[in-house]
């Protein structure tokens, strides 16, 4: 059931949940009734309690012992869907454009709403196109493996970059990005 935006509650855009679920299905990470349940009654333009996304995430986390690489791939697949079948092409023209889109959390703000403290941010802190380095600081409630995949997928989707590496090993909230 879609929920109206409420400032007191953390809510996530339906398209994000559906994008996650569809990515899982595309990658054959889940199948059968579990897959059908993932999509369930999610409305693309609805807003849902963040817990709904957690539920969908859990389907992967509970099934896979090492869920990190899986969630990373799901994040990548989500962004391919966003770019090829969603609004992505209209928003970003190239891989670096995806990084620019994160300035001031504008990309993130379009999919999560709620109390500032709970929403957090997904902000481009630094970008040097000449050296091919950038940094994103994320305090969002999203899974960080998935977020890493979102950055890789978002930058890869336009197809103009030859090399992308995203690391967040030391501090999961800090994504150090290299690209060329």
């Amino acid at each position: 059931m879609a929920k109206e935006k409420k400032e007191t509650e953390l809510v996530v855009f339906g398209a994000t949940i559906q994008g996650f679920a569809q990515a899982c299905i595309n990658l054959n990470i889940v199948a059968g009734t579990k897959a059908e349940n993932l999509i369930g009654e999610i409305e693309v333009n609805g807003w849902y309690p963040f817990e709904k996304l957690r539920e969908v995430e859990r389907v992967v986390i509970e099934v896979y012992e090492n869920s990190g690489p899986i969630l990373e791939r799901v994040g990548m697949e989500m962004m391919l869907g966003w770019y090829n079948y969603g609004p992505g092409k209209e928003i970003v023209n190239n891989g670096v454009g995806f990084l620019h889109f994160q300035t001031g959390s504008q990309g993130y703000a379009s999919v999560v709403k709620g109390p500032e403290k709970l929403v957090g941010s997904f902000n481009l802190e630094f970008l040097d196109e000449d050296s091919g380095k950038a940094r994103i600081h994320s305090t969002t409630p999203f899974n960080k493996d998935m977020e890493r995949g979102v950055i890789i997928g978002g930058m890869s989707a336009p197809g103009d970059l030859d090399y992308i590496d995203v690391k967040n090993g030391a501090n999961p909230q800090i994504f150090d990005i290299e690209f060329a």
Partner: protein
Amino acid sequence: MSLEELLESGTVPKKEDISEEELVKLFRKFRGLQKKQERDQAFWAATNENLKIAYEKLDEQERELAKAYGIIQDDLSVASKIQAALLPELSKKMASELDLAVYHKQLAEVGGDYYDFFKTCSGSFAIGVFDISGHGVSAALVMTYLKAQFMTILEALDSPKEIVEWVNNTSYDFLKTVKKYTTVNFVVMNTTALRYVSGGGFGLLLSGKGSTVFEKRDAFLGLRRRPFHEYELPFKKGDLLAMYTDGIVEAQNSSGADYSVQRLNDLIIKNAKKPVQEILDRCLEDYKEFRSKDSDDITLLIARKKV
């Protein structure tokens, strides 16, 4: 040549064919592919690990299932012995009055076909043949219930109609609850005649030169609270009685044709002069030749009046 053209050509380029800019691009592409490969490897490693865990879980579940199956098989084996023990033996007195041959085979370890020999309150012999709906343990448990019911009432009644109606009335609610019903073919015999009640049971009486197929239009036990009909037929020395369930007559051959009541009755009539065991064997040979496979419990009982 551009880098794309060089890669497309498939030949190793000479140093002078590649500009520094293209070399840099090549290096980046290579690193990009390395990173992609690393990510792919991590993804497939996680997937494979998951597959391994799934196989281990599957193995464990298979072991548990095998263990559970073993327990069930042991239980069924005991149940089968108990059910066999509940089937009757011919009393000396009854054997002195009847030549009897019975073939009784359950499709599974335990089943729903049931036959029994009784004595009514007046001392008349009675034979009952039943086919309880379904197979397996539930049908076998209903059989034990019915046996108890018949044994109870036979101490008080003599008429097959009254006996069957009493059992139906007292069992009706129970059978409804457990979603079971049963055909009934119940015969009480005296010195010169037999009386029978049949709700879905098959019977054939060969008396003198004539033959009578049992009326079996009454309801099954447990289906309706309705009166049953009782029929009386002469039953004298040398007469032959056959009672059976649908296991043989509804068996099919490879073309899907039923064995049929007609075929079995004709065979019994044709062999009527033979000893009862021979008649039974002949019927079974013919059935086994005909049917593609057993698909139901089977009970076939043939009795000849000796005195």
